[in-house]
C-alpha cells in the first residue's frame, strides 16, 4: 500500500466502485474542472466523470435518459444553490451530480457511482 500512497501524492488517480472492487479509471489530471469524461467499465457500462471547480469528483451513468444517447459526459457542469449538476448536451435537462436526480423532471434520474481519488 505504501507504494501507491507515494504515487498518489504526485499523480492522484480516480477510482470507481465497480461491484466489490475499486476500478482505476485514469489520472485526476485528465479531468478539466467544469467538464467531464466518459469511462468504460469492465462490464461494458459507460460512466460519466466530472470535476467541479473545487476539483471534487462525481460519477454518474453516461446515458442520457431522455434521448438514450451516451453523452452526459459531454455536458457542461454548473451549480445551483451549491449543488453541482451537469446539463445534458442534447436537450439540456440538468442532473444533480451527487444524487443523479433530474432537476427538470422529478420522474427521471440516473445512477450514481461512488468515486474516490487515490
Amino acid at each position, binding site marked *: 500500500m505504501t507504494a501507491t500512497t507515494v504515487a498518489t501524492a504526485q499523480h492522484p488517480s480516480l477510482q470507481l466502485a465497480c461491484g466489490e472492487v475499486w476500478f482505476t479509471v485514469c489520472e485526476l489530471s485528465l479531468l478539466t474542472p*467544469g467538464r467531464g469524461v466518459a469511462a468504460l467499465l469492465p462490464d461494458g457500462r459507460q460512466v460519466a466523470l466530472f470535476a467541479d471547480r473545487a476539483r471534487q469528483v462525481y460519477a454518474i451513468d453516461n446515458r442520457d435518459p431522455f*434521448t*438514450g*444517447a*451516451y*453523452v452526459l459526459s459531454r455536458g457542461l457542469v*454548473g451549480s445551483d444553490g451549491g449543488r453541482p449538476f451537469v446539463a445534458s448536451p442534447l436537450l439540456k435537462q440538468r442532473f444533480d451530480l451527487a444524487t443523479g436526480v433530474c432537476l427538470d423532471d422529478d420522474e427521471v434520474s440516473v445512477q450514481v457511482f461512488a468515486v474516490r481519488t487515490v
Partner: protein
Amino acid sequence: MPVSTLPTDRTSALPTIVVVGHGMVGQRFLEALADRGLTATAGTARVVVLCEEPRAAYDRVQLTSYFAGRSPDDLSLVEPGFMQRHGFELHLGDPAESLDREARTVTARSGETYAYDTLVLATGSYPFVPPVPGKDAEGCFVYRTIEDLLAIEEYARTARTGAVVGGGLLGLEAAGALKGLGLDTHVVEFAPRLMPVQVDDGGGAALLRTIESMGLTVHTGVGTQEVTTGEDGAVNGMSLSDGSSLATDLVVFSAGVRPRDQLARDCGLAVGPRGGVIVDEECRTSDPSVFAIGECALASDGRVYGLVAPGYEMAQTAAEVIAGKDAAFTGADLSTKLKLLGVDVASFGDAHGTAEGCLDVVYADSRSGVYKKLVIGQDGTLLGGVLVGDAEQYGTLRPMTGTVLPVAPEQLVLPAGAGGPVALGPSTLPDEAVICSCHNVTKGAICAHTTLPEVKKCTKAGTGCGSCVKVIGQLLPQSTDKGVCGCFPYSRSELYEIVRTLGVTSYAQLLDSHGREAARGGDGCEICKPAVGSIIASLAPTLGASGYVLDGEQAALQDTNDHFLANLQRNGSYSIVPRIPGGEITPEKLIVIGEVARDFGLYTKITGGQRIDMFGARVDQLPLIWTRLVDAGFESGHAYGKSLRTVKSCVGQTWCRYGVQDSVKMAIDLELRYRGLRSPHKLKSAVSGCARECAEARGKDFGIIATASGWNLYVGGNGGATPRHADLLAQDLSDAELVRLIDRFLMFYIRTADRLERTSTWLDRIEGGLDHVRDVVVHDSLGLCDELERLMADHVAGYRDEWAETLNDPDRLRRFVTFVNAPDAPDPSVRFVPERDQVRPDLEILAGPVLAVRTLEGSVSR
C-alpha cells in the same frame, strides 16, 4: 361535399341552423355556437354551413400577407378538426342560391335543399366596380379573395405597369402588392386625398408624400372614365376624368365594397336604401328566424360596418340570442391601425372632429411624413385622432378616448426633443379600456394573466390584426431582473462591457467578482458559461486573451459543439461542415470531401447554407477526418459556433446575364473576413449580384445586394422561426465603404445584443431601432466607430483556424476519445443502419429495453 355528417336519425330531429357564407364572421359565429354548446356533437343543434369559396374561412384582413409568403393554408382561420369536433356540416364551393322563407328552406347551387329553423346570413360584401366601359376586359381584377390574388399574381408575370382604382385602405394595400410584384404602380383616387374615410387632409398629405417617395405614382382628384383595351382585348390603359390617359397592363378595382344582400332582396327581407340587410339590435332581420351578421348587415345604428371587429361582435350577439340569452349590438367604433406600404396609419374615435366645439391639436412634419392630430372636446376629453407615419401611441390613445388626458395633449403629439412625446404608459388606462379591439378584450381581462401566450390562449387578444400585442406586452408583469441567468444579475451586453473595460479574461474571476452573491465561488451554469465564453472569445485579441476557444479555462466554458468543434447529433455522433466560402468550390476539393465521406462512412448532405455536411463521425474520428480536410486546404466552417456561418452568394456578374457586380468575390471576401467571429447568436450573410436577389440576402443578418453603382447593405434579416426581411441600412456603397460599415454594424451588435438574440430581434428591441443603429454606425453619433473598427481589425488579425490549431496540439487531441480509460475503443452505442444508399443513426440500440426514444422536438432550449 360535407366535411362531416352525423347519422341523419340523430341530427334530423335537432333544430337546424343554416349559415350562409363562411367568411371571417361566419367562422366566428360557428366558434360562438361551439362556445355555447350549440353543436351536433353536443346533441343540441344541427349546423349546416354553405361556403361559396373553394376553401374554408381564412383571414381576409391578412390577405396581402400572401404576397409576403404566407400560404393560403397559413391564412386559414379554422383550426384543424374544428368542424369534425363539433359535427358542423361544411359544404365548400356550394353557395346558397335561393331562400324560401315560407317553407324555411335554402337551396344551394348543387341542388341540395336544407330546411332550417334558424338562418344566418354572413355573406359579406363584394367589391364595387364602377360602371366604366372596359371594366370587364382581360387584365381587370378586384381584391377580395385568395382566388383574386392568385389571378393577379399570375397576370402580373407578363405585365409591367399596374393601376389601382381607389386610394382607400384596400386600394393602397393592393397598390403595395402590385409594387411588390415588380410593377410600375399607379393609384387613381377620385377624392382629393388618399384614404379619405380614415384620415383628414393633413394626414392624407403626409401619406401622399411618403407613398410617392416609395416610387408609386398617385393621381388624386381624378376619376376613371374608361378602361381601354388593345386589339387582343386585354387592358392597355385608362382614360381619366381630367382628360389625361394612363398606360397600364393591369387594373385592380378597389373602389369600395357593397353588402351582398341579393339573397335577402330576392326573398323580400327588408334592406337599406343603400344596401345591407336591415337588422335590429339582436341582429335579427325583418324575419325573426333569419339573422344577418358581418359586412352584409345594416346594423341598428344605421351603419354597414366594413371592418372585422364589429362583425365579430355581431357574430357573438347572434349566437347569444340564438342560444336564448339577451345580447345586443348597438354599434362599434371605426378605429383602425394599419401598416400600409410600411407606413403606420391610425385613426380612432371622432377622427374628423365632427363634435360641436371640438379643437384639433396638430403636429405635422412633411419632411419625415409624420402627421398627428388629436381631437379634444370642449371639456378636455379626448374624442379621437389621426396618426400617420408614426402610430406608436395608438395603442394607448385609443382606449383613452372619452376620458380627460392626464397630460397636455400637445405633449402627446410633439416629437422627442421638442417637449414630447410623454410616454403615456398603458398603466394609466382604466381597467375597462378595450385594448384589443379585434376581440373586444379589456385591460382588466388581460391583466388577469401573466404571459402573452396565456393571454392569447385565454382571451384571444392579440390574435387578430396584432396591433395590440405591444401594449399587451407592456401590461404584463415585467421581469425586473435583466440578469442572463441565476448566476449573474447583469444582461449579456452589461457583461460585455464589464469584460471589455476591466479586461477580465477568466470566467471564474468574473463570477466571483460580479456574480450574484449566492453564485460566487460556485460552478456557474450552462447558460452563462457559454455566454461569457463567447464574450471573451469575441474580445480575445483586444483583451490579450487566447483567441483559441479551447485554451485553458475557456475550454470548460464551451457548449459541447464548440468543445469538440463539431455538431453533436442525436445518437452522440458528430457532423462536420468544412467552410466553403461563398459556396464556391473547386472540383478537387469536392473530390476530397467525397473521398473523406466515403472512407469514414459518413452520410453527406448539401446544406441550406451552400455547403456540405458530413454526418455520423465518432468523437475519436474527428481528428483523423480533419487531418485529411486541413491537408486539402479546408478549415472549420464553425457550423457549431454562435459565430459567422455562411455568406451565401449568387453566381453574379461573372456568369449571370443580369449581374451588375461580382457577388461571389464579395461573398468570399466577407466570409473570410468575419469567419470565426464569436457573437451573441449565429450570423448569416449573403451577397446577390443584382436586384433579382437569388442569394436571398434580405433573409440574412447582413445582406448585400449589388446595384449599378455599388452595394446596398441590408441588416436584421432572419429566416427560421420568425422570418423578417432585412432593412436597408445604406445604399450604393463602394467595396471599402461596405466592409467598413459591416465591421461597425457587427461589432455594435456583438456589444449590445442579449444572449441568443439574432440581429432581427435585436434591431426590433433596441431603443430607436434601425434609425438608432444607422445613427451610430453610419453617422457615428456615439463616437464609437473608431473603436468598433479597431475591434474588428483585431479580430481579423487574430483569426486562426481552430481545427489546424487543434491538430497541432497533442494535449488537445487527447480529448477526442470516447473513453478516457480506453482511448482506442470506439463508442459501441454509435451505430448506423442503411437508408437510401447511405446511413442513418441506429436509434434502437439507444432505446434500450425500457425506454422509447423521445424525439428531439420540444427540446428545453436554454
